[in-house]
């Protein structure tokens, strides 16, 4: 960043020497106006839903039906949030979202980091096959393998051992993991959770660019590979961890596909938001009514607010860290 500054800044004398300076000034003013117009018009499209959400979340039902009210409501109310919280069963579903999805998202950051380090640093037999499988893992959509995975969780087994023992004892020993948090914890622990292929890829690219000398020095000093990894590599890979962490949080928080499949009750927030109109109908509201629509917007605000705040805080570091992870070459 600093070097860009040096090259772009012009000293006053240099400006004077520039014979085209007058022309260039007009051009640059024109360009900057064009830039703002461009950004405003696209920014408007992107901000529109957010503004729409905020306006409707605080709007009373009367204002919704009032044709003179467009953007600025006449009265403000928190009723929509109350109805939204009631509809989505806020405390319970937020609890599931945080302690099941977000927690497994955190676990995934580390399990993926470890696997990626193995792939990036060691040249063992079968590594090439694993590299290919990694690409396949990123490419194959979840939908393709969701049914076998569902059945897998319904009759959880460890390499068929429980099944064999079970048939001998004539007892069902295979575990039913559906409706338990383990359907998220176990894959995350084994680095095959939500979007984990992508995370391993990011980590792998980063570790490949990581200077080998540091690790070699550590291993000469007698540190084991694991010790090197935890004491040297992890502390210096803040940027990769941050990138994966943010993606992981966003994607786990937003995940509704798997929870909807593997859970039958106790849904996390994302599933409840998706089914909001069905749920609000269950409470006796018409889906097209002002109350329902406003409450849906209030629920959306509640849902994206935590991620939005986290994102706003980390936004600046995030971009810098992505360029440093080396995923973009």
């Amino acid at each position, binding site marked *: 960043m600093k070097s860009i500054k040096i090259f772009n800044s012009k000293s006053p004398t240099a400006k004077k020497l520039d014979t085209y300076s007058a022309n260039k000034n007009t051009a640059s003013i024109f360009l900057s106006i064009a830039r703002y117009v461009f950004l405003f018009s696209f920014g408007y499209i992107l901000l529109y839903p957010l503004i729409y959400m905020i306006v409707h979340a605080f709007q009373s039902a009367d204002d919704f039906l009032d044709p003179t009210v467009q953007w600025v409501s006449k009265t403000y109310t928190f009723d929509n949030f109350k109805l939204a919280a009631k509809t989505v069963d806020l405390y319970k579903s937020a609890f599931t979202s945080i302690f099941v999805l977000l927690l497994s998202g955190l676990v995934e950051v580390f399990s993926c980091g470890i696997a990626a380090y193995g792939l990036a640093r060691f040249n063992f037999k079968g590594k090439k096959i694993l590299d290919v499988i990694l690409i396949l893992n990123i490419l194959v959509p979840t939908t393709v393998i969701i049914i076998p995975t569902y059945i897998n969780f319904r009759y959880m087994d460890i390499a068929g051992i429980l099944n064999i023992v079970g048939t001998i004892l004539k007892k069902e020993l295979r575990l039913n993991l559906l409706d338990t948090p383990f359907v998220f914890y176990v894959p995350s622990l084994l680095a*095959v959770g939500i979007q984990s292929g992508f995370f391993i890829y990011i980590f792998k690219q980063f570790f490949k660019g990581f200077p080998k000398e540091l690790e070699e020095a550590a291993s000469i000093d007698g540190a084991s590979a694991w010790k090197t990894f935890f004491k040297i590599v992890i502390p210096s890979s803040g940027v990769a961890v941050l990138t994966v962490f943010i993606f992981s949080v966003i994607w786990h928080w937003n995940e509704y596909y798997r929870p909807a499949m593997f859970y039958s009750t106790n849904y996390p927030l994302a599933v409840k938001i998706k089914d909001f109109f069905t749920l609000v109908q269950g409470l006796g509201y018409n889906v097209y009514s002002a109350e329902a629509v406003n409450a849906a917007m209030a629920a959306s605000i509640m849902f*994206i607010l935590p991620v939005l705040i986290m994102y706003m805080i980390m936004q600046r570091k995030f971009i810098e860290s992505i360029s440093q992870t080396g*995923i973009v070459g």
Partner: protein
Amino acid sequence: MKKKTKGNLDANKNKIGYQFVAHWILGLLMFFIIPIIDSIKYSLTNITIAAGELKFKFIGIENYRQMLLSDAKYLDNVRDSVSTMFSSVPIIIALSLILAIVLNQKFKGRLIARSIFFMPVIIATGVVMVLLKSGYLRVPLFNVTSGAEYEYGGLIDFNEILLKLNFPSSINGLFAKYLSNVFDLIWSCGVQIILFLSGLQSISPQLYEVSKIEGATKWEEFWYVTIPMLKDVILLVLIYTMIQLFTSLDNPVVAQAYSIMKNNQIYDLSSAMLWGYFVLVMAVMGIVLLLYKQLCLKRWE
């Protein structure tokens, strides 16, 4: 002698690698490879649900035949999703590249602009978008897709504009559809903008300095410095965008398979649908990447 010990040491050191990937290999076996094999198996069997247990009967390619010959919607959906891909990918890539270049420039309010333009990452990948696009709310920004019916929405009624401009009505619908899709496409640019932006930041400023000294115009600079330097990022974005378009639940084929799987519990046919589709997707992606390599990468070398 010395060499041998060193080789042994290296081999030993490399064996430690297994410790790092052991959990992942177990996970891949349990949650990726076996499910994939199972899923292929399902697509070749007839599955009946009896007393809570699934019963499998091998029937060969019967499911694929049924999907291609007797399902009226499947082929239409496949055609739709491939044509959508070909119309959307160039727009998404061009749009996100332009936005990334603009956001990479120095101007007042850049930080705010950046956080606005990454908002799609948070909203669009998530469930809120499902809610916003649902037919219950008539958010005037989005096209509402309810089942097979395609309704025009959007901020600007392009259909109306084109009619007023005296466009022939036969091509009107097509244009209006693509134009109003542009608004939807901006929403799928979030991650792409981030990738391009970080790619732009990793281009060394010296290159621009050299091109300036050589007397290149901004236009030439863009085509001869920026684009070739971004070739890896473009490849990454290309792959990411295609996966995103092909595998999202908005995709008509995926949506169709998902709905018959979840609502009607027909596991065999839906597996066949997804596998048939997946093979096609791989083929299309392979062709696109090959073309990219042949036409673009070679020229930029």
